[in-house]
């Protein structure tokens, strides 16, 4: 800048550095606290866990570098295999929440008296903590007095001990998890159904489409955003399953209902000893599984962003 030779009566004040770069600087100032928190508690810990999985550490003494020994041990660990296999079951069966949610949403998508209250009450299970859902279902399955066996008794079946049977226990817990998850998908679909274009339905009706064909060719394509969100939250929910297992069976019987998230917790923090490094290795495996889905979600979002 050239300095005026003749001093002005009101010299234009030189703008501050911030003022000159306001548009460029402001977003970073606004982002700083959020990024700081997120980096300290989320981003950096991910890398720390990766690092820790190469060590043997009891949480107190010195950590000892062991290379990939923890991962080698995982390969031969029966309990790890059971947990991994249970995770696959969770992923597969938890997805039933999506068609179930759609079914209930279609059932409730009417305008009769009191339907709003019905919709809210159907949504109820999602608002309740998984801890309470777990307790409630543990009693529901109880072999001596549970409602399930009482009902089975009426038709001359049972009694079955769902949570005490290694072959049934995981399915029993997944069923409990499906209850709130179905409610979640239901509400997403109900909102989606609200936005379905009525003209397309009318056009479809004129073309003679009805029932399942109408649903498949006209309604479902329009519900795609809802389906995507259902898919995201259900996959995440399946891989995060921990509360229900901890409350209902504590991993049992004989560790047959463990999943990776629970097994990791057990190895790292419970009475089975503080094997932090081994726990971190399990967490890394779980993270890598999740990463496949995260990458897919982000890719879909990215395409969406580009589209705009």
């Amino acid at each position, binding site marked *: 800048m050239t300095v005026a030779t003749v001093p002005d009566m009101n010299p234009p004040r030189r703008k501050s550095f911030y003022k000159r770069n306001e548009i460029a600087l402001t977003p970073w100032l606004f982002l700083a606290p959020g990024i700081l928190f997120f980096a300290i508690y989320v981003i950096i810990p991910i890398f720390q866990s990766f690092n820790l999985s190469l060590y043997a550490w009891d949480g107190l003494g010195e950590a000892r570098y062991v290379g990939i020994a923890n991962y080698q041990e995982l390969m031969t660990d029966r309990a790890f295999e059971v947990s991994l296999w249970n995770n696959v079951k969770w992923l597969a069966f938890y997805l039933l929440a999506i068609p179930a949610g759609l079914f209930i949403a279609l059932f409730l998508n009417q305008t009769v008296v009191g339907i709003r209250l019905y919709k809210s009450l159907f949504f109820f299970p999602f608002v309740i903590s998984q801890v309470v859902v777990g307790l409630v279902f543990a009693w529901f399955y109880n072999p001596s007095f549970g409602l399930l066996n009482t009902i089975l008794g009426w038709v001359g079946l049972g009694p079955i001990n769902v949570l005490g049977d290694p072959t049934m226990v995981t399915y029993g817990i997944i069923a409990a998890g499906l209850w709130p998850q179905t409610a979640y998908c239901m509400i997403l679909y109900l909102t989606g159904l609200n936005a379905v274009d009525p003209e397309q339905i009318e056009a479809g009706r004129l073309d003679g489409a009805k029932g399942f064909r109408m649903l498949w060719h006209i309604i479902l394509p329009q519900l795609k955003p809802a389906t995507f969100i259902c898919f995201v939250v259900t996959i995440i929910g399946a891989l995060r399953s921990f509360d229900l297992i901890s409350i209902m069976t504590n991993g049992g019987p004989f560790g047959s209902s463990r999943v990776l998230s629970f097994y990791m917790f057990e190895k790292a923090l419970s009475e089975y000893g503080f094997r932090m490094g081994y726990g971190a290795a399990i967490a890394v495996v*779980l993270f890598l599984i999740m990463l496949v*889905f995260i990458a897919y979600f982000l890719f879909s979002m990215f395409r969406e962003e580009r589209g705009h």
Partner: protein
Amino acid sequence: MFPTPIEKTSRPWQLTYQGLLPLALIMWLLPLIAVAIFSVKPAADFTTGNYWGAPSSFEGIANYMAVFTQSDMPRYLLNSFLITIPTVVGCIVLSSMTGFALGIYRFKSNLLIFFMFVAGNFVPFQILMIPVRDLTLNLGLYDTKMGLVLFHIAFQTGFCTLFMRNFIRALPFELIEAARVEGIAEWRIYWFVVLPLMKPALAAMAVLVFTFIWNDYFWAVVLTQGPSAQPVTAGITSFNAQFGVAYHMLSAGSIVAALPPVAMFFLMQKHFIAGLTLGAVK
């Protein structure tokens, strides 16, 4: 509207539908109804094996009173509030700022930072568990409410940023441009233009985060251990240990623990549902 509106269908189907509705609801909520009935039964019903019959006497008031007077439950409930409310406030503050920055400004790494928040929001808790526990221990915050609050704020910022940013993107950008032409400082645009418009989104987000945090169990177990800091989700396990097989007490305790988010949901229903679907299904 799909399926065919009920008023356009045959009379018998209309009646069937009206009858099916309450029936389906009862089936759907059966486990909860059972617990509600358990919670008003006297202890004697369980020793005599009267599990599913009508309560022999109504002991609801006595049972719920006992939850509040004979256990640490009030303490756990208070802890839950003292953890949940500061977390909600913290999330609103942080994510309204990050959402504003990512929603309004165009700069090179915008999308990258946004995706970092989104991706972080999806990671399994276990990959964070050991480092976060260590960090909390080193800060001297293990077994304190503060330790939990700080972590929850940080983690929920991921979800909340996604939420806020998508909402702000949908605002008419001309408003901001008009303000800039007027020469209004950027932070004033945030405070006086964008923030007032975000009120419904903030309400929706607050209800959602309240529910998420109230219902958190994993982090409560990892970062706290006693009645001094544990929220009700973790506290209920010690409550259960205390009452053993006293099912009337366990049921009453569960209902008390579940109630605040339920109340929140019914009070702010419109916001809640808007929140669950915002940015995705409009």
